[in-house]
């Protein structure tokens, strides 16, 4: 439609546009007729506007059109509208830290039930997607990639529903690391061989992280490869290789570590060193040598059975010796976990002076992470049962548990917790504390909500009613989300 056609010609329209762009002082308006001419500049401007409004739309050039970028199809079933609304409500909690905790917990619940995020919600969730520890699906990965870079075309890896030895190089670092860890737990040699192929093509930081995956199923077969890495050009790779060699029987770092540890334990058993001095590695790899967590984490070996042999003790005896040191207990628990000696883990915890379940859980979290899901939960629950969780923000218990358990407590543990004086006191504190500490209590309330199994959601929700502060909202919304999730599963079954 060209409404102006009856009033001015196409040539006049072009000239009119040129005059207005350059300025009528420099390029005079075209001669116009009748009422338009009488209207002067106002009419000329109005006509120019209408030529723009009614200009014919250009025909699309299909041949030179850039390719359409699209997300892959969702793999699993999507959440129902009710569950989705409950989930999105959770994501509207104002505090960013609380939102991240809630998102990670909600995602693990959804993943465990095979449910996918709705693709329409990804734009709103882009700020928290990276908190999904269990890895993102192809739709989420594609969204992050395409939304971050206007010029990026979609990577072939994003379309694969499954990462395999054949296509793993097409994926990003996070997915490749997760894949190698999984492959190591099934077939350590195949995973190492895959890693060695084209090893030098990645940047140093990525190579160090890929090498780090060898801690899963670490064994003597890895020793030659790790020893070659001691000559690597990147310090981060050399450091990672050295740490891993501490866990390889017969290697120099392993023997040094074993000797250091057993010397200390011998002294402890003989009444030395002096009271108050706890264990430290002689030559720490970590710069943060004073951190208890770092001391425990640097203990890549030795094997629990080797420690027992070195001390000339039966393993069950070593597991029940009162060593008077939480750090040594944690290192030995880790040593037992590395070797898969689950029967000694609880015993070591019970004979530790503090019976610090959350500390022990954090010490072995990265080791048991590769165990089958049920076994991981069983061990974690056993450790957490050593001592009731301390709920106040002064302690790290709840943070450790929420971070490492990645699922609800066992029903009996949760029941005991909800019935404990500690819980009652915590709820009273949440309701009454008004100063800067309130944020910490609020965060722990949310973490606690993520640890409550669905069957105890109702009594927990009732307890929250006592906390009239809106800070309890995140915890309340999470229990609502759990209830919606349970209702959806019931409806499906």
């Amino acid at each position: 439609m060209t409404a102006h056609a009856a009033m001015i010609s196409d040539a006049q329209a072009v000239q009119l546009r040129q005059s207005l762009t350059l300025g009528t002082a420099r390029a005079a308006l075209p001669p116009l007729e009748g009422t338009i001419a009488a209207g002067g500049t106002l009419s000329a401007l109005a006509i120019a506007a209408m030529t723009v409004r009614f200009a014919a739309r250009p025909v699309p050039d299909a041949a030179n059109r850039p390719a359409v970028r699209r997300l892959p199809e969702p793999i699993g079933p999507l959440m129902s509208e009710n569950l989705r609304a409950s989930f999105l409500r959770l994501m509207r909690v104002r505090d960013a830290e609380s939102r991240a905790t809630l998102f990670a917990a909600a995602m693990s619940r959804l993943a465990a039930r095979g449910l996918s995020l709705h693709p329409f919600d990804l734009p709103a969730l882009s700020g928290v997607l990276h908190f999904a520890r269990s890895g993102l699906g192809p739709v989420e990965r594609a969204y992050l990639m395409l939304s971050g870079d206007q010029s990026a075309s979609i990577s072939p890896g994003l379309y694969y529903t499954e990462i395999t030895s054949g296509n793993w190089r097409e994926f990003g670092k996070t997915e490749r690391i997760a894949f190698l860890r999984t492959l190591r737990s099934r077939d350590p040699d195949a995973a190492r061989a895959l890693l060695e192929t084209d090893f030098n093509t990645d940047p140093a930081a990525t190579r160090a992280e890929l090498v780090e995956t060898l801690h899963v199923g670490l064994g003597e077969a890895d020793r030659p490869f790790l020893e070659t890495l001691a000559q690597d050009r990147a310090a981060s790779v050399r450091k990672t290789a050295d740490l891993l060699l501490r866990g390889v029987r017969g290697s120099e770092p392993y023997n040094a570590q074993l000797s250091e540890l057993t010397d200390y334990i011998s002294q402890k058993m003989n009444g030395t060193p002096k009271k108050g001095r706890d264990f430290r590695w002689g030559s720490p790899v970590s710069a943060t040598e004073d951190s208890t967590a770092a001391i425990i984490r640097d203990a890549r070996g030795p094997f629990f059975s080797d420690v027992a042999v070195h001390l000339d003790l039966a393993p069950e005896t070593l597991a029940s010796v009162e060593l008077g040191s939480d750090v040594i207990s944690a290192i030995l628990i880790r040593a037992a976990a590395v070797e898969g000696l689950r029967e000694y883990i609880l015993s070591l915890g019970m004979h530790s002076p503090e019976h610090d379940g959350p500390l022990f859980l954090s010490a072995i979290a990265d080791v048991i992470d590769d165990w089958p899901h049920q076994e991981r939960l069983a061990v974690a629950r056993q450790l957490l049962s050593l001592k009731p969780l301390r709920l106040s923000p002064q302690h790290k218990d709840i943070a450790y548990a929420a971070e490492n358990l990645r699922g609800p407590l066992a029903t009996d543990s949760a029941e005991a917790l909800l019935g404990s004086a500690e819980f009652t006191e915590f709820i009273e504190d949440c309701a009454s504390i008004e100063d800067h500490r309130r944020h910490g209590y609020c965060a722990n309330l949310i973490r606690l909500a993520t640890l409550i199994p669905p069957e105890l959601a109702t009594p927990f929700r009732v307890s929250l009613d006592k906390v009239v502060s809106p800070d309890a909202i995140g915890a309340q919304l999470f229990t609502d989300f759990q209830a919606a999730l349970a209702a959806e599963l019931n409806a499906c079954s």
Partner: protein
Amino acid sequence: MALALEQIEQMAPDQASLSAAAGLRKPAKWPLLAQLADGALIWGECQGSGSAPYRTVASLTDLGYKCTCPSRKSPCKHVLALMWQFVESPARFEAAASSPDWVRDWFARRKGKAGTAAAEAKTTVAAGEGGAIPVARGGKPGEKSILLSAVEAGTPAARDEKAEARAARQRERLKAEREAAVAAGLDELERWLSDQASSGFAAFVPVAHEQCRLAARRLVDAKAPALAASVDALPSELFALPEDLRADYVVDRLGTIALLISAHRRVDRLPTELAQDVRRAIGWSLKRDELLADPEAVRVKGTWLVAATRDEVQPDKLRRLETWLVREPDVNRAATADDHRFALLLDFVPAMGGGGASFPYTPGERFTAELAYYPSATPMRAILVERSILEGQGVWPAPASGLADAYDGYLQAVARNPFIGEWPTAAKGVTIEERGAGGIWLADGAGGFELRIAPKQAQALLPLSGMANLPVIGLWNGRLFTVLAAETPLGRWWWEG
């Protein structure tokens, strides 16, 4: 928790709020009053002066509250009236097993005790500032009394015929003064336009901010607020556009302003509806009561779907709250011209102080209502006359036509009313195509026609990219399309921009 009138008195920011709340206690003002079964929350909808009712919610456990009205007072009269009614007549509140989404959303978004603290602080300040304390009739300075409010609300205003005649004369005089001021303002604007045309639009772009600000201020002085806002918004709209569209935009906008000036000078000779469009584009407004009293106003009843809500802060520091509605076709009756009809509920609130104002509706919500349209050559802006809420998802109002036909519909609307800014459009059989650096487009199925989508929607529409044969609802402004809603295989998508 039991609520007492004394608590409401304590919460009220001043006596005037209590008096206003007293007047709002009539059941007719509240089409909806409800409470959660456990008594923790109460909520309601109150028909105010806005285009849609205000939604009000209060927590009885900690006396937190929220209202969608634009009042600067906290709590506003609606919150006070809601609580007051609950104390006086709890039976009026329907017991609900669960709260509606908007109540749950408010609950999820609550930020600490800020609301309560603010109310407490306000009360404290009011009690401590001698000079600023409102003096209640018959009461002491700063005293707030529910009893007094109820008496005030029930007092009929004394009628004074002489005073009314005087006021009518005053209104006529002010109207004549305004007409003269507007005419002079438009004369000045014509000179301004001629200056821009003389120096060239290429030279206008770099100085657009400064030039438009200046012109807008003069239009405010000339009592042409709508045109002032439109001129003021021009630079921000210009620079939000992709560069290749900017030259056309300047020609279109400045040319349309020129057309408006010409039209205003001939307003008596224009068709009545178009004349109304011209006067409204300058800044003359029609009050809600006047529209309701107008027997000629177009009224449409039906089931309406909330297609989108948009909230924009204008350069004149007013928030423009838009609620776009589309009428669902009635599956039990033959198609009518009003099927797929659009309507715009529009409210303006101060950006500062009216920050509490929010949308009473969420996209996807449906209700049965009668709407009254403002007189126009292309009726679009409307107000709600009466309304009832509907549950569930209705029929998607997909039109029979494709994208090219929808575009023709826009051109026809512009031919009737050239002062249209954005025009709502529905089309079927379209594909949203995200082409990376090539932009994002709305294309018809055959690939023969396409409209460019606003770049700000690229990330939000990425999940829809490549989906074929979609029915969509959106706004076209002559340059860019804003997708408001779409029916897809993954469910309905709503723009939350």
